């Protein structure tokens, strides 16, 4: 079995977001970069499949040289090989899906795993777009995955519930928190990863469908007020304010 895990480098969740001088991109100063957390579940799942049934795990990222950190980490965790598709990192989800589809084609992958969304861009689009471009099955926001002989069975989160998706391999599966508990890299893994090289390829040309034309911070929230008194009085005052001022009830 051959598994591709697509990983994205994103700003850490604790990062404060600042808009760059161009008015449409993120100011990278002071940003700490991490592997998108949902991609970590995807990678962990691939490694578990490898451990349980045997598989070749290829880690892939699209981006600049900076994204090599994500791939080094993936190698340390247990990916067999790593590929960087070099691009400027500016493309939309559709462009990235095209680049990955061009790489994947004819390489015989049985399974493609990635996060259900890249933290930050929050598009939740690359996985299903890749599935369509490759003409394969998809299951998104997956919390449980089982593989059969050329088939998969995936539990995915829906609006307040869950459903079982069954389909044929190859497939694109996008991971959700809960799929597994990702491991930490072992010292042995980190040392072994140092000996491995990251294959660098130019990303295939792609056409973006959309672009960010402006990035802005949300408006400041109006100042609020504190409600004083004993708990019973505070409770009464809050509900009254929500009813009369905010007109929520």
């Amino acid at each position, binding site marked *: 079995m051959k598994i591709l895990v697509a990983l994205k480098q994103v*700003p850490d*969740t604790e*990062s*404060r977001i600042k808009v760059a001088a161009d008015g*449409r991109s993120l100011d990278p100063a002071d940003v700490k970069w991490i592997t998108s957390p949902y991609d970590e579940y995807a990678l962990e799942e691939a490694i578990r499949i490898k451990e349980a049934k045997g598989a070749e795990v290829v880690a892939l990222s699209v981006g600049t040289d900076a994204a090599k950190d994500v791939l080094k980490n993936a190698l340390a965790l247990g990916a067999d090989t790593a590929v960087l598709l070099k691009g400027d990192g500016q493309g*939309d*989800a559709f462009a990235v*899906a095209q680049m990955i589809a061009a790489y994947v084609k004819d390489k015989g992958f049985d399974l493609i795993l990635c996060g259900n969304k890249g933290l*930050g861009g*929050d*598009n*939740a689009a*690359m*996985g*299903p*777009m890749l*599935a*369509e471009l490759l*003409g*394969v*099955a*998809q299951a*998104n*926001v997956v*919390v449980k995955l089982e593989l059969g002989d050329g088939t998969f069975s995936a539990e*995915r989160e829906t609006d*307040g*519930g*869950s459903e*079982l*998706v*069954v*389909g*044929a391999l190859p497939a694109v599966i996008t991971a959700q*928190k809960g799929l597994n508990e990702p491991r930490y890299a072992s010292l042995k893994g980190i040392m072994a990863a140092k000996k491995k090289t990251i294959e660098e390829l130019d990303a295939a040309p792609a056409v*973006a*469908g*959309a672009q*960010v*034309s*402006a*990035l*802005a*911070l*949300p408006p400041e*929230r109006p100042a*609020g*007020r*504190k*409600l004083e008194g004993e*708990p019973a009085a*505070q*409770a*009464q005052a*809050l*509900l009254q304010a*929500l*009813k009369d001022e*905010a007109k929520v*009830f």
Partner: protein
Amino acid sequence: MILVFCELKDGQLRKPSAEALSEGRRLADASGKQLGALFVGASCAGADDAAKYGADVILTAEGGTLASYSSDAFAQVVADAVKAKGATVLLAAATAVGKDVAPRTAARLAAGYASDATGLSMVDGKLQAVRPVYAGKAFATTSFASAVQVATTRPNVFPAAEKAGVGATEALAAPTGDFKSVVKEILAKAGGKVDLSEANVIVSGGRGMKDGANFKLLEEFADAIGGVVGASRAAVDAGWGLPHSMQVGQTGKVVSPTLYIACGISGAIQHIAGMSGSKFIVAINKDPEAPIFKLASYGIVGDLFEVVPELTKAAKAMGIGSN
């Protein structure tokens, strides 16, 4: 045409779909286009509801390969409808199905895609979307390069406004062929409660709840005011047995209710990212310096174990949940 992919639940138009339709009507009026509503599924009985929200044409595709949800079958029928009607804008609500089918359909149409939009407009005949990024820490204006433009609308943001439409109906054939995946079984239903992402009122608990069992207090209060219970990452990760589906924040659900009540939540950046789009925020916390108070429309510095039961009692006395 502006085409809106709509969903039914128990034979009725889902609220997020009504919101998407209403926004579609507004965009259609602004650009002199027709509004189409598209229903796909086992049965489309109830689709005529779309006329109430301004649909000029109601398209239905039901049964056969569409009897159970299949990403590829649905994407095909939606893309075919876009092409057949010459639609230039495709909208869907950002629900579990909407977020699954819309990007796949966009790729099929070589169209740009904006997910979870909170603002839409027509600029020079093309869609422009404003959407939260970094879970709402910033907003990106998205412009499209493609001939067809696809977007999903975030639930609870666009008002569902009734406006009578012509509502002429037209049935489409279910696609034939061998599709790659299908929903075999519904494992868990939302029950009577709405999902967090659609909820109008959310009562959320954090580390200050001290134990999962204490969430019962929040449930009682939420029941009294017609709300749904959520949790911070700290609470979900604390091993209290709370499911991830309850988590609000950058790595959980991003919500935009009318009212968000944060109980024992300090206000970590990643939590704030997930709920700062709420119209009104109430913070209940022992620590007067907790960052959550900076966002709060109303703040109560106090012990949630004393305040929340008082709130439940007062809500019942005021009859708040009953209207």
